[in-house]
């Protein structure tokens, strides 16, 4: 396996590094070194800087604020930002840019692109995702949010849940059932709902860490123009699923960087608590190290597939299973190192509720407790539970017979 990047990508890498050196504060140590309020302020300001310098959506056409570069360039950028501990965008931009931005470019009409892309690029718009429902989690296709046609509008009734950063949203992109007579995966449409909307109410959900990270979104006779449908009506499921692969490809290249940085913090923690000579601790650290190294190689394999084929298959399930189960073990080691101290919460709580805490974060108990209880433990649940991932691997990679399905497709 040739792990070198092409010359052109390396040239771009140098450009990205210069940009970061020129625009990050001189004493920059990572977002994790800022307290949460400072981190929020920095993120928003940094976002504007990125937009100005066209470092957002570099694969997008120039006319939409991008640079028309390849996916490989995006990955290189993501890697360099990760190494520098600089946010690639705000947390809410995971849905805003990665998901909606790319979906619009692939499926949107010219009019829709012209209307929505500028806001996405500048950061003035923040689109949050409304997919899951109380009765539609793993079985997302069973969703029930209803959109009925009334003239030029959809009228939406129903409820969404687990909408990340919903309270920050200027709009929700959602999947709704537009043809109740079609089969489960058909008859769903991908609809943009701008906020505020008199028929849409967003209510925060407190997570076990005490933070309001997710929201419920209630639709009561909410009117949304049919023109806000992205892609063909009733084909929203295809629209929503078409770009998942690309997201995973980039993730595969950057996750190892974040988990490596996290492991370095754990090693430092072992030194700080005086257990770096303990053979049992060393054994556990060595295990973590081998896993992170494997993750890096696995990431390259997946990245190669994405760049070559333009899509990723069920191998993404291996990656997701791998890092999410690894993370639970690594974080438990960190908590064990903290020992009795871990019973007293102090220091900075993590800025984000998924995966590792930010680079530069101190080894505080608040950081590790929240990462253990929330980030790591939820890793095997969101974006497809570990059980679902194993099913995918078994049925699509190992070609084992599918489980008999009792319900209508």
């Amino acid at each position, binding site marked *: 396996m040739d792990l070198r990047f092409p010359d052109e990508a390396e040239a771009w890498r140098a450009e990205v590094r210069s940009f970061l050196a020129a625009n990050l504060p001189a004493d920059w140590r990572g977002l994790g070194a800022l307290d949460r309020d400072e981190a929020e302020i920095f993120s928003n300001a940094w976002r504007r800087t990125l937009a100005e310098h066209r470092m957002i959506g570099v694969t997008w056409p120039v006319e939409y604020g991008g640079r028309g570069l390849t996916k490989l360039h995006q990955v290189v950028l993501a890697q360099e930002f990760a190494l520098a501990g600089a946010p690639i965008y705000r947390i809410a931009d995971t849905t805003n840019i990665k998901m909606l931005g790319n979906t619009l470019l692939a499926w949107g009409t010219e009019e829709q692109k012209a209307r929505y892309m500028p806001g996405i690029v500048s950061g003035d718009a923040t689109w949050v995702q409304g997919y*899951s429902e109380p*009765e*539609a*989690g*793993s*079985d997302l296709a*069973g969703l029930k949010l209803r959109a009925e046609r009334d003239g030029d509008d959809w009228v939406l009734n129903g409820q969404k*849940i*687990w909408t990340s950063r919903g309270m920050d949203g200027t709009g929700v992109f959602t999947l709704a059932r537009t043809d109740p007579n079609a089969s489960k995966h058909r008859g769903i449409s991908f609809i943009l709902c701008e906020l505020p909307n008199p028929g849409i109410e967003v209510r925060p*959900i*407190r*997570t*076990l860490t*005490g933070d309001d990270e997710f929201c419920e979104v209630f639709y009561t006779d909410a009117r949304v123009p049919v023109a806000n449908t992205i892609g063909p009506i009733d084909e929203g499921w295809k629209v929503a699923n078409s770009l998942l692969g690309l997201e995973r490809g980039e993730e595969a290249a950057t996750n190892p960087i974040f988990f490596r940085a996290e492991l370095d913090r754990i090693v430092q923690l072992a030194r700080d608590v005086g257990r770096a000579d303990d053979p*049992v601790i060393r054994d556990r650290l060595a295990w973590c190290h081998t896993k992170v190294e494997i993750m890096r190689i696995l990431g390259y394999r997946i990245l190669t597939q994405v760049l070559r084929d333009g899509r990723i298959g069920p191998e993404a399930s291996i990656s997701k299973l791998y890092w999410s189960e690894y993370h*639970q073990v690594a974080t438990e080691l960190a*908590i*064990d190192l903290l*020992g*009795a101290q*871990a*019973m007293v919460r102090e220091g900075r709580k993590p800025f984000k509720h998924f995966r590792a805490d930010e680079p530069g974060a101190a080894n505080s108990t608040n950081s590790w407790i929240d990462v*253990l*209880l*929330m980030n790591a*433990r*939820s890793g*095997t*649940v*969101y974006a497809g*539970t*570990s*059980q679902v991932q*194993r*099913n995918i691997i078994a049925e699509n990679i190992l070609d084992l017979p599918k489980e008999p*399905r*009792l*319900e209508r497709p």
Partner: protein
Amino acid sequence: MRNDTRTTLDPDMIDMLRSSLRHVLTDESTRPLADRLADLGWKEVVDTDPATALRTLFEIKGDTLSGADALGPSLASKYSELTGASSASVSIGRPGHLTLVDGSGAENEVSVDEATWAALQAHGRWLVACELVGIGRHVIASAVEYTKDRVQYGKPIGVFQALQHRLASAHAMVVGAGHLITEAGLDGDPWTATVAKCMAGQTAEFACTQAQQCYGAIGFTFEHEFPAYLRRTYTLDRMFGDWRTLEHEIGSRLQATRLVPRIGSL
């Protein structure tokens, strides 16, 4: 069946006891736990069958997630049994050291000999192990109920083997841990208490992680009961030695002595 001359509480008595303890441990009263237990005739119960009484108390404490301070007073009773000195509450410090708390809340650190300290630590390990087993049982039972109600893909998710197997494995561990805490209560041996706590810690942790997979996203919300059980598990495990450390200690001792004690006999 074993030739054991100890008397035990009969099953009906134990049922009644469980019920009363559940009330006492979850009522919102500010009266000290010792007083509320006294109302139950607790002393008589403990005198009759201390092993069953204390194990039941702490298992229910785990099951209900009661915040009542039962550990301090229980350690105080044990301390009194060992030394004759009385105290309202005792907490265990570094080896050879205890903190005594009197009725007015005044604290006093004392030194004790190795044997006394070890016996108290063993008692503490045993009681916390009982609480962990109570947690393990609770989260499994709750997850089972949830998997009957939660429907996805047109079926209750409890029909999926992946979830059935996770909870079944966890249940087997709980059963195993249950035997160890029972035996530890009967033989009073610090070694048994250590093994019991080791098993209880890994059991509760495993039961929680498996239950969490069953709950999915809802198990991460503030208002759901589950996260509190998970947090309590981590806290309790770390009292008197977390299970990974104890595993190492147990193995280390076996290697050093080259003896493999058989816990319990026919």
